[in-house]
């Protein structure tokens, strides 16, 4: 039996349901009863209960695409800051996708301190040791572009249903956008004003993540800015 409506705002300790439901996120079970453990919006689908978080840190999960910043270099790899309580470990072999003879090669030629890296979370163990890999196409060291940080819980909204929000922003602005689950976003564009317009759009998504019809409003906002840029002239 459910005690709340779909999309209802819940607070920690609030009774959500009784009986055999599956908990996906943001809730816990005590005997037969299921309670919310975080502040969030209830997402009830059939037998599945999920509380969509509104706040919180990024916790690495296997399979996530993330954007890291190199904070340390060691003999066989790098340590990356992931905008999370936990750092990521990237080995040379997971960056180059081949065996590397550490006696023959100097790995500092591939990445150095402060470099931005697109990576996938390969594995997270019970001690929260995060293994990364960055060998696939589109992964690895990032050059150029603008790096931005948002609240990690708002990232699904930035992506949109099946990537609709990103597609809308890319089409409207002509910029290329890549998103990491850890709340970091990379934006590449020829016109810095367009890049700034995308930054504005992202900040708007962060502010209004919980409202509906957001994709259309974002597109409208971007088109307005682009109109202004065209009037000013230049590229």
């Amino acid at each position, binding site marked *: 039996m459910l005690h709340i409506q779909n999309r209802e*705002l819940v*607070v*920690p*300790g*609030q009774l959500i349901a009784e009986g055999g439901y599956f908990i996906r996120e*943001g809730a*816990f079970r005590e005997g037969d009863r299921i*309670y919310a*453990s*975080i*502040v969030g919006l209830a997402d009830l689908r059939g037998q599945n209960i999920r509380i969509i*978080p*509104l*706040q*919180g*840190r990024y*916790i690495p999960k296997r399979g996530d695409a993330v954007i890291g910043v190199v904070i340390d270099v060691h003999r066989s790899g790098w340590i990356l800051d992931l905008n999370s*309580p*936990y*750092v990521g470990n990237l080995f040379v072999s997971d960056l180059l996708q081949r065996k590397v003879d550490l006696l023959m090669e100097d790995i500092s030629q591939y990445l150095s301190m402060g470099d931005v890296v697109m990576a996938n979370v390969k594995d997270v163990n*019970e*001690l*929260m040791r995060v293994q990364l890999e960055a060998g696939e196409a589109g992964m690895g060291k990032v050059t150029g572009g603008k790096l931005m940080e948002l609240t990690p*819980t708002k990232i699904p909204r930035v992506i949109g249903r099946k990537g609709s929000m990103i597609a809308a922003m890319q089409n409207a602005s002509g910029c290329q956008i890549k998103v990491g689950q850890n709340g970091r976003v990379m934006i590449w564009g020829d016109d810095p004003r367009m890049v700034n317009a995308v930054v504005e759009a992202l900040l*708007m998504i962060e502010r*209004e993540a*919980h*409202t*509906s*019809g957001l994709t259309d*409003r974002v597109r409208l*906002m971007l088109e307005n800015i682009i109109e202004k840029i065209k009037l000013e002239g230049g590229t």
Partner: protein
Amino acid sequence: MKKPEKLIIDGKRLDGRTPDELRPLKIQAGLLKRADGSAYVELGENKVLVAVYGPREMHPRHLQQPDTAVLRCRYNMAPFSVDERKRPGPDRRSVEISKVTREAIEPVVFLELYPKSVIDVFIEILQADAGTRTTGITAASVALADAGVPMRDLISAAAVGKVDGTIVLDLNKQEDNWGTSDMPIALMPRKKLITLLQMDGHFTAEEFKNALALAFKGCEQIYEAQKQALRERYSIKPEGE
């Protein structure tokens, strides 16, 4: 401050409250931009600001726990929070209150979800008027929820005491100074589990029972206000730019 002749006149307290009445309570969540979670609580003349950071990487590293997160609490009184300037920095009293606050909050937080990390809770007393530890705990649990930290329940805290032979809820400064006993209580309201119980002075067994029942009643009201504050913080704002 001089001792008033009577603290309860015709069943009313000096500030006009009945014995089972709380002081006016105001809770606001999420007002600090740079903290992960925050809360501001006013309970009568008490003004408390709480900031929560984390879960974040634990430094120094040797304090990391491999299987769980660590909760760190700091209760601090501003030098201007009391009548006579308080010497800044931790003292015997605030170190103790930091510890009991941590122990009052720890049981509700799912610390095991974030091994090796730390959750920092900073409780700043901006203005004190008796009952700051309970106000601090109340505010801290709202701030933790605001930070998105998973919790089993909120924590509500209130003090009860004996003034002029009457059991009263939520003592103010005068009642705290001239009353005969004071008992701060924190609890998990959903299951009615007590996480903090201290006592200064004496109660008979009968008085203790009544006092406890009164504290539960007070915490219930605080709990509702806490939930209300969190809902207000995240209620869907009107659309538009």
